[in-house]
């Protein structure tokens, strides 16, 4: 009897594994990515199942904007190259141009790709084209940017508000809930900048912390350095600095070092150059995580859909901030300042793209 029961159980298990739907939990997307709680519809198993080889299209919001966006493209390409069932990855660059993104997605539909991955330029930029793609039976995976429509198939979203709040909460804790801070923002009008800033505002609610200076450094080292020099010369009395990006953090730290002044608590993110500076200079900071490997997660989600696996519609990527000890584990002295962590690039690719020698 026991043998019979075991045989039946084994048969059911085997049948389930070979023929039945794969559940959302089976699909690994990225460390720290979880299915959103609450109302979260399921993309039913088999809906987009297709035999390989597959052609996957991607509309990148802007490959050459900075080193992080470049790495997202590399992570995506590396993940696609690793899967022999993907015959071609068509990576198109919208160059942060909303109208070009609309055109790019239309071109991908015209090429009859099997799945489309979209990093939206803005919250509305791709809505109409995404709806067209889904209507044409092409699954659409969205990541690193929300859109107002829900026409896409599945999304993986590292919340910009969460990112800003992780850094804001750290400053609130370091300052004991009171003091004066500078705020270095990214590109004016860009949703990532606005949402990260909104996260900071959430942290500051009800606290006695005053923003005495707020400037847009466009996430650039050069611009932020000029800003920090001006701010320091105007009023060096600042208790903390909230910086929306690692390059701006590095610039501001360099300004304080240039003037021989103590570095106030300042926020950063997972960039190798920033990690090196943080470890060497020992100032107080936190690194918010926003991995470029979200590009690889997008490929895995697209593959899962084409394999016919079940996915949830919404996935969140809201990891905790890193302290300097965690940064030390990732920091690589043999690589340039342009690498972002955590990365899934193979070692040989890391050395090829970012090796100092």
């Amino acid at each position: 009897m026991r043998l019979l029961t075991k045989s039946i159980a084994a048969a059911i298990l085997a049948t389930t594994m070979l023929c039945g739907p794969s559940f959302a939990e089976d699909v690994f997307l990225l460390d720290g990515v979880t299915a959103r709680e609450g109302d979260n519809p399921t993309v039913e198993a088999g809906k987009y199942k297709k035999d390989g080889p597959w052609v996957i299209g991607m509309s990148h919001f802007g490959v050459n904007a900075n080193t992080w966006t470049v790495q997202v493209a590399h992570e995506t390409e590396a993940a696609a190259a690793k899967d022999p069932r993907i015959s071609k990855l068509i990576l198109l660059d919208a160059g942060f141009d909303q109208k070009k993104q609309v055109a790019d997605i239309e071109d991908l539909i015209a090429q009859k790709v099997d799945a489309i991955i979209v990093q939206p330029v803005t919250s509305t930029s791709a809505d109409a084209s995404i709806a067209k793609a889904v209507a044409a039976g092409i699954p659409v995976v969205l990541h690193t940017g929300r859109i107002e429509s829900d026409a896409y198939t599945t999304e993986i979203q590292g919340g910009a508000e969460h990112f800003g709040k992780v850094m804001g909460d750290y400053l609130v804790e370091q300052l004991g809930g009171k003091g004066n801070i500078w705020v270095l923002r990214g590109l004016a009008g860009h949703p990532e900048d606005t949402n990260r800033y909104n996260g900071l505002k959430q942290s500051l609610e009800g606290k006695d912390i005053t923003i005495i200076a707020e400037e847009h450094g466009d996430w650039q080292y050069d611009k932020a350095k000029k800003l920090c020099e001006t701010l320091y010369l105007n009023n060096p009395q600042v208790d903390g600095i909230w910086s929306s990006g690692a390059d701006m953090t590095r610039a501001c730290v360099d300004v304080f070092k240039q003037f021989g002044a103590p570095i106030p608590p300042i926020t950063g993110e997972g960039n190798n150059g920033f990690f090196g500076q943080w470890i060497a200079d020992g100032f107080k900071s936190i690194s918010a995580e926003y991995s470029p490997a979200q590009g690889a997660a997008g490929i895995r989600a697209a593959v899962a859909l084409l394999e016919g696996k079940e996915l949830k519609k919404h996935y969140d990527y809201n990891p905790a901030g890193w302290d300097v000890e965690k940064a030390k584990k990732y920091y690589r002295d043999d690589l340039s300042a342009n690498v972002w962590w955590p990365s899934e690039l193979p070692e040989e690719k890391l050395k090829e793209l970012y090796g100092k020698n």
Partner: protein
Amino acid sequence: MKADTLRLLSTKGSRQGMWLLPLLIALGLAIWLSVQTQQFLNAGNLLNLVAQGMPLIITAIGQMFVILIGGLDLSVGSVISFTTAVLALDGPGIVLIPGVFVLAALIGLCNGVIITRFNVHPIIATLSMQYVLLGITRVLRPVSGGTVPDVVIASVSGSFLGVPLPVFWGIATIAVAWKLLYGSRFGLHLFAIGGGVASGTEDAAHNFGIRDRRNIVLAYVICSCFAALAGVFLAGRIVSGDPNVGLLFELDAITAVAIGGTQLSGGVGSLHGTVVGALVMALLANGMNLANVSPFIQTMIKGAILLLVVSLQSRKKMGL
């Protein structure tokens, strides 16, 4: 074919500029793409191409009017962004749509008056206007979003008698521009004013009794209104208002005009050349996507081809 039309389409020794060369390049690109990619001649892709190229065609035509008088309008990109922001104010279309054209006309009027009455160089005047408008647009709409009137969205995405609506936008725009440039005294005066500027005798047209200041102001008003039309089209395409959608569009428009054989020094150029110039740029963007050219080298190829096209025309004739 009427003699007048033949004269307009000729290039030899005419004021129409060198537009046959870019036409040959456009045809060459189209043939190469149809051989290289299966999708190029697909009806869906050709429709994509028309819709994708239309904002640039419209803006470039407007830009051509001011370039013909030896001017330049760097504010058209901001006019486009501003137009999408105003259209996304969630108001009634019957108010917003005429409203954006009235506002655009006022912007053009300001540009023209500043240039003609205060003798400010067109680059400085329109660059200042670009910044002012960008600021206003970002106050109106700090990030993209809002609701665009349904009629605007429907007018760019549907079809009539089986013909996609963007095609009608193109026909209407070209017809209006053709009438203004070749079917009116105003058009003739633009060539006269530009010809004087190009030859170093800015008062030549004025001395012949042409009301040059009024015509210059009118050229800037027309340029702004065409930019607003492109903004309306784009708002329908992106279904929202966006403070950054027009960024650097002025440079694309100037490039398209230059490729189309219009002299940047004024006085020589053509509508058909400008349309061809804009088509070359649209073909490049669409073609590189279809040919699966890596985004890391797309901009490099675009720059190289543009340089090649412009280099094949003599600098003197280009006004560069």
